[in-house]
């Protein structure tokens, strides 16, 4: 723990272990332009024309959002079993990232739906599920911010992560009976009906890797930010202790 090592910081210790941040940064610098290029040169969809290209961001963002909430769930279970601060850091980082990526997923999907379905919004089961999931995890963030005591903050976040994650499949099953609203879902389950072929698959995989790298980069940076906050707090208390 940072509080035990008086002036030692847990971050930026040289030679401690491999620093992933520069590696990830260079990989992103290479992958991001590459995936943009692939998105532009990949064949245009017959029915959807240019609007289909937003899928290359939409699908990876949604997958990263599910991945974040999975990491949050695992962090929650681990915190519950061990009560270690490091799992709390993992939980808060992945919770924030999950909300961020699900927001991207909903916005890109909504823009696409405007062209494909002629509406920004329809109560399709998947859309409904993702929306409810976003609301659930937003309320989890609120719960965390409304708590003062650090250890209580961690345990409430952990409990909420476990309950929220288990709730998501139940939400999905319940939306089967949801009335479809005025606008028919033209493509059945979105995504599946649009076949990806040849170079489209390559583009999709490239974008998936880029988004995965971005997710990892954000997660590591967010974890380090939280560790630095711990270090600052530890230094602050150590200094105060000397003055008295």
């Amino acid at each position, binding site marked *: 723990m940072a509080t035990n090592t008086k002036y030692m910081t847990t971050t930026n210790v040289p030679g401690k272990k491999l620093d992933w941040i520069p590696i990830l940064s260079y990989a992103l610098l290479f992958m991001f332009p590459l995936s943009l290029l692939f998105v532009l040169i990949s064949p245009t969809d017959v029915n959807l024309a240019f609007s289909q290209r937003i899928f290359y961001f939409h699908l990876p963002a949604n997958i990263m959002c599910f991945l974040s909430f999975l990491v949050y769930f695992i962090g929650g279970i681990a915190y*519950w079993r061990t009560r270690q601060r490091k799992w709390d850091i993992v939980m808060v980082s992945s919770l924030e990232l999950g909300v961020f990526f699900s927001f991207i997923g909903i916005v890109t999907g909504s823009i696409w739906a405007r062209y494909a379905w002629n509406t920004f919004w329809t109560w399709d089961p998947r859309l409904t599920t993702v929306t409810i999931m976003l609301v659930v995890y937003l309320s989890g963030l*609120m*719960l965390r911010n409304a708590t*003062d005591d650090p250890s209580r903050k961690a345990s*409430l976040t952990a409990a909420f992560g476990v*309950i929220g994650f288990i709730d998501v499949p*139940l939400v999905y099953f*319940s939306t089967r*009976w949801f009335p479809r609203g005025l606008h028919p879902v033209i493509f059945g389950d979105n995504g599946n009906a649009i076949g990806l072929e040849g170079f489209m698959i390559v583009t999709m995989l490239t974008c998936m890797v880029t988004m995965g790298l971005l997710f990892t980069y954000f997660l590591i940076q967010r974890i380090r930010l939280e560790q630095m906050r711990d270090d600052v707090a530890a230094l602050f208390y150590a200094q105060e202790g000397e003055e008295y």
Partner: protein
Amino acid sequence: MKSYLYKVWAIFSKDVRTELRTKEILSAMAVFSLLMVLVFIFALPGKLQEPQDVVPGLLWIAFTFAGVLGLNRSFIIEKDRGSLEGLLLAPVDRSAIFLAKMLGNFAFITIVELLTLPLFSLLFNYSVFNLGLLPVLLMGTLGFAEIGTIFAAMAVNTRAREVLLPVLFFPVMLPVIIAAAQATSAVLANRPFGEISGQLQLIGIFDLVFLIVPLLLFELVIEE
């Protein structure tokens, strides 16, 4: 096992006795749901001609909101009078406290629901008395009580506790609300019972999962 159930019973009967003496939770919930029915009628006067469209949904809106009111009180009362510490110091497993509190909330919300049903029938002039409604009502309320009790225990130790409970509670409860409202409208339209088996199954799974998970998690949530 027998002594565990006895402990649960002891805490449950303590809650019931406190409630019978103060009538704090029940009266607040009952008056609130009466007012909700009135607000619905004033807000949707045109719908009085075709109540079958709105009553199933409105019933569950009223139950959810009234339920949150009661769930909030169940832990705030303990916290404000300092009796929560006493309860935690009692030589019982933490899960027994959850189980007892959950049963208490379940009983109170069910009583209020049974009081609200005749009000709905009377004021909307549309009978909601149907034996098929009973399983939907009881199972849905059990889900409310389970999730509501653990979230109330979580929210009571935060800053904005009264506001936070509905914010946490509604999104997680949505599967039960969707399924229960669908099942209620099918029952009230006198459609065959087999049609709502899917909804009842979902609520049943929800009840079972969220009986076990909070029982395990409760010690994490309530620790001092």
